[in-house]
């Protein structure tokens, strides 16, 4: 699904070009006040051009035509930006739609696999219906597994081709319509009516069909509309002002409507006005590129505001498994002896902990891995009852496990649990690591230190987040000692140990009451209340239906670290809007210096002193400003689609950098741009007056 698009995909450009003309429909433009004004200006100047052919006025028809054409281009360019942004989403929606095609489903009369089956088309399925799917079947709609275990290929949704296990109960019970059952069978209770399924929601999100303006976008729209009205009045009143001035000066002619329209369009914030919706759509698109489906644009925006990140320890901060880092022998036991026993007990233990013990023994003590069958050893797997695992070999029992379990085991054999081992065990626990005691028969050999391994680079990520002003909190079911140790290793700001769903929910509420915005990830059904409470809640796609419904985003990769990326995308969206607004307003300074002296030259020739760019003549000056105003939209499309590069810096540094580039740059660039365009036009020698 995560189809990466080249920014300059020619097929996309062709489609977008066609759409940008269709979007000239005034009924469509009226939603965007700034561009609507430009379109009215385009129509007005077109009429003026036609009129000037019959009845020549002050401006040569060619000049009016040129202005009119470039005003049309301005609208078309803005439409093009929007269509480009939409186009990328549409291509993805197309892929998704293919996976949603109608299929036949085996509707069950009762929620068991042996109930009577009727075959119905998938759109007939309603919430609460139960269906049976077997190997090779496509799951007809979203639902929960209520019976059976099967492997499911979810590549249609996630892009990940390795099948995943779906089973009833627990956190792996949710299935998504459109995915393929690879083996075995499932009984599924449908949880969504047609049109409300996950794929339906994804399609509408990526298509932007249901896209509503986000709160900040609305606020910005209002500001832009306010500026537009001010500039509208400021330019329209030039008509009476210049009528008066013509009388006062006894020379010249009032400023023409073409010039006023050109000035108006140049002054109103067309750059940001034209790119605003493209920026919003592109922001959603960047989420999709990151394989995250946001349920609303609002959620994407909120991600940029997040103050607190709640991150699960396992899988996010640590590698998810403990690793053996040290063997500590009991008094009188050789370390080699301990290492060998530990390795033997773990040879058939396929858990990552077990593997890490084998590897440690081999690397540190040179004990080669042996084949358990060749040793005639019998593996004793871990059970919840014994809380130990190990081997029986040649009548000797080797066990490893939690210290109290091993102590009980040794005592039963008539042995004693040495006091120094108790000390070692306590010492390891104090460090936040996990002790695993190894016993051979009735004697305790020593302790294995198991440690949580913090993911590489995570500490740096947290450091960046701190620079962004975001607090990270580690959530773990571990005891406070272990939690504190991992927290300090990982560099998180705080942790919640022995976390229960209630404690999580309470923590979120506590931060929210203090005015903070909280983001979290979750996958289990017991995460659902906390997910629903959090401001930005990312559910793992591998998680339960309840979790997915409680969250406002779904991460298709089920990667909890993604939260950090999501925050950055949210911020980037806001920054892109802010910088382009600044750029757009800053541009106006140069445009004034281009158009005003040109407009008033016939009345007060002395005002030519304001023509600091030394533009060739009034017509080239006005046209250059209009052309610059249109072309800058096209030039900025890639920036609008990709977003302004975000660097994790404090607010002060970010503002300084962006002001230097987009504020000062916004003042300077048009002076150069307009001058260059003026030189080009005057070289053409069309407008000599």
């Amino acid at each position: 699904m995560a189809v990466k698009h080249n920014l300059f995909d020619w097929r996309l450009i062709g489609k977008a070009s066609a759409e940008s003309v269709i979007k000239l429909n005034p009924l469509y433009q009226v939603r965007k006040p700034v561009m609507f004004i430009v379109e009215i200006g385009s129509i007005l100047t077109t009429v003026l051009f036609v009129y000037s052919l019959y009845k020549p006025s002050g401006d040569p028809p060619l000049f009016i035509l040129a202005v009119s054409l470039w005003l049309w281009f301005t609208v078309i360019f803005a439409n093009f930006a929007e269509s480009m942004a939409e186009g990328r989403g549409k291509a993805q929606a197309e892929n998704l739609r293919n996976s949603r095609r109608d299929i036949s489903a085996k509707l069950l009369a009762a929620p068991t696999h042996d109930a009577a089956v009727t075959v119905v088309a998938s759109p007939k399925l309603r919430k609460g219906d139960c269906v049976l799917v077997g190997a090779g079947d496509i799951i007809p709609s979203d639902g929960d597994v209520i019976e059976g275990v099967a492997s499911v290929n979810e590549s249609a949704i996630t892009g990940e081709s390795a099948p995943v296990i779906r089973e009833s109960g627990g956190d792996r019970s949710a299935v998504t319509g459109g995915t393929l059952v690879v083996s075995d069978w499932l009984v599924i209770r449908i949880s969504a009516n047609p049109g409300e399924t996950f794929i339906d929601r994804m399609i509408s999100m990526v298509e932007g069909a249901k896209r509503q303006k986000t709160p900040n976008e609305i606020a910005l729209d209002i500001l832009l509309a306010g500026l537009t009205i001010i500039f509208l009045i400021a330019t329209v009143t030039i008509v009476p002002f210049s009528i008066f001035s013509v009388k006062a000066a006894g020379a010249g002619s009032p400023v023409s409507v073409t010039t006023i329209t050109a000035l108006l369009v140049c002054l109103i914030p067309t750059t940001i006005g034209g790119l605003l919706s493209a920026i919003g759509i592109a922001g959603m698109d960047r989420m999709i590129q990151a394989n995250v489906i946001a349920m609303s644009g609002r959620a994407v925006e909120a991600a940029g505001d997040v103050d607190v990140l709640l991150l699960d320890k396992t899988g996010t901060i640590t590698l998810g498994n403990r690793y053996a880092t040290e063997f500590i022998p009991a008094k009188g036991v050789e370390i080699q002896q301990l290492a060998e026993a530990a390795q033997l007990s773990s040879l058939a233990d396929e858990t990552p902990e077990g593997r890490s013990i084998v590897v440690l023994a081999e690397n540190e003590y040179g004990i080669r891995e042996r084949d358990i069958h060749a040793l005639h050893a019998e593996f004793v797997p871990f059970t919840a009852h014994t809380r130990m695992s190990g081997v029986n070999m040649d009548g000797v029992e080797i066990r490893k496990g939690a210290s109290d379990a091993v102590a009980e085991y040794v005592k039963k054999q008539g042995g004693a649990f040495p006091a120094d081992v108790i000390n070692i065990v306590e010492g390891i626990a104090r460090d936040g690591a996990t002790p695993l005691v190894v016993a051979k028969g009735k004697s305790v050999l020593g302790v294995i230190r198991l440690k949580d391994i913090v993911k590489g680079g995570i500490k740096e990520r947290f450091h960046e987040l701190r620079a962004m002003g975001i607090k990270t909190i580690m959530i773990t079911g571990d005891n406070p000692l272990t939690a504190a140790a991992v927290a300090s290793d990982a560099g998180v700001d705080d942790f919640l140990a022995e976390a229960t769903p209630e404690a999580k929910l309470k923590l979120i509420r506590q931060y929210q009451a203090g005015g903070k915005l909280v983001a979290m990830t979750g996958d289990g059904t017991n995460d659902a209340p906390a997910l629903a409470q959090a401001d930005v809640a990312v559910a793992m796609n591998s998680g339960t239906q309840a979790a997915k419904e409680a969250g406002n985003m779904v991460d298709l990769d089920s990667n909890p670290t993604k939260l950090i990326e999501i925050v950055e995308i949210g911020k980037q969206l806001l920054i892109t809007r802010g910088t382009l607004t600044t750029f757009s307003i800053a541009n106006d300074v140069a445009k004034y210096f281009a158009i005003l002296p040109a407009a008033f030259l016939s009345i007060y020739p002395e005002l030519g002193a304001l023509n600091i760019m030394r533009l060739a003549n009034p017509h080239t000056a006005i046209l250059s400003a209009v052309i610059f105003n249109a072309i800058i939209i096209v030039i900025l499309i890639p920036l609008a689609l990709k977003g302004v590069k975000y660097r994790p810096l404090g607010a002060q540094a970010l503002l300084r950098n962006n002001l230097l580039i987009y504020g000062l740059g916004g003042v300077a660039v048009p002076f150069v741009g307009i001058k260059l365009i003026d030189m080009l036009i005057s070289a053409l020698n069309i407008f000599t007056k």
Partner: protein
Amino acid sequence: MTENGLLQIGLYFVTLVLLIKPLGSYMADVYDDAPHIFRPALKPVERLLYRIFGVKDDDDMSWKQYTASVLVFTLFGGILLYLQQRFQNHLPLNPQGFPAVSWDSSINTAVSFLTNTNWQGYGGESTMSYLTQMAGLAVHNFLSAATGMAVLAALIRGFTRRSAQTIGNFWVDLTRSTLYILLPLSIVFTLVLVSQGVVQNFKPYKTVPLMQKVTYDKPVVDSQGNPVKDASGKDKTEPAALTEQSLPGGPAASQIAIKQLGTNGGGFFNVNSAHPYENPTPLSNFLEALAILLIPAALCYTFGKMIGDTRQGWAVLITMFVILIPLLIFCYYAETADAPYVKGLGAAISSGGNMEGKEVRIGAANSALWAAVTTAASNGSVNAMHDSFSPLGGLVPMFLIQLGEIIFGGVGSGLYGMIIFVVIAVFVAGLMVGRTPEYLGKKIEAFEMKMAALVILIPAVCVLLGTGAAVVLKDGIAGIANPGPHGFSEILYAFSSCANNNGSAFAGLSVNTPFYNILLAIVMIAGRFGVIVPVLAVAGSLAQKKYVPVGSGTLPTHTPLFIVFLIGIIIIVGALTFLPAISLGPVAEHVIAAK
């Protein structure tokens, strides 16, 4: 420019800065009802007033109730002031026997004083009875100022209150502003002015012989009052001489104190503080100029103290200074520069620069200083005629007004206008750092932006549309005294001044006509309440919001960087809105003269 002149300007600002913290801190205590120096003595008076008027001081209002109170209070005040002028010939304290003021002028003046504009289409000493001046105009000098301060207090509460429905009680804010701040300061200032020789009496005008006889050519008129032409078609004149003059009196000092302190600016006499009875000595000139900026500047500190972060108040204050001082120096420079258009004008040019329209005793430095501060603040009193300033010198007061009266601005109104600009700057800057913008812990969202847009939009639209109408309509053009771009500047200045509630006049424009009286009155109302209502709406909306604690991702709004950005927004919005108009007025006049 002379060193002496710059030194006086320097002394002015140093004195001002020294007064900001003590006064600002005191005013914060007044609004927070914290212990302060006058509280023990005046609290019983305050309580008594509440009992008389049936005000419950703990009865807080929603923003809508607050707004309704402001509007109703102003409306009733307006009706009273209108009637007072219309019936002044039947009321006492009218020793000169002035007739009733015309209906259109009465409306204009009533609106003008209620909106803290104090635009004067009339001449005080030749129109208004002592009672109208003292019990009408001076009263509204207090109340309109106190209203502005009350609205500011309400806006500040919008920031300090959390998840609240109310923003304070208007009657309480009005009473406290008047009783604890404006009255004590005015009483002290009146006494100082009287000591300097400002008149304060109820005596009729005195006729006294002139020390030096003045001779002039008097036009000959026929029995109908039409000028008689001589053989060559010129107006016929005959030599005449003036031997005596009329010296006005009245309760001037008490009114001048509040007109300076309350950023009102409506002079007791027609020429305002250029009149020797209104502004007799260098000290009175210094103190009156100081009084203009005193409260608006100190309120910035009040704001900082009330929100619990004085750095925010200083940041706003620095923004104001950084915009004002260069413009002031530029004005001073323009008035003293050896410009081509003042060459060869002989007597009008002294060593002090362009002295047309200036009091010789006041000089260019103090005239420029006054012109800049009176238009930065929405005071509008003058000690020199802005109409006679050089084109660029006159551009400074005009531009300061057009910035929206937020560089100090009116008491209360200047700061609430500035805070709205800060909100807009925070919005754009906040997006640039990648967060939903927030100011002082309150999120700035669509509703705030809508109201902020109105605050910027309404006065600007009034100026432009009003000027646009006046320059093409016959009644509008009829008032122009000077031809060419200067005539345009006069009209532009009048509408800028009224729409932004400044009240200073470029003069040179005859505005005491029904056309200007009514049009300018409409513009004054729109400029005042078109801002107050949205500001109170913002206050109400902010008060309801939760507080967002400051973190390192929060945009700091007290740093030099933010101040620079804020200045940029203010200047760019102001300049972009008015550049076409300014180009056809002062700029055109300058470039033509420079040729």
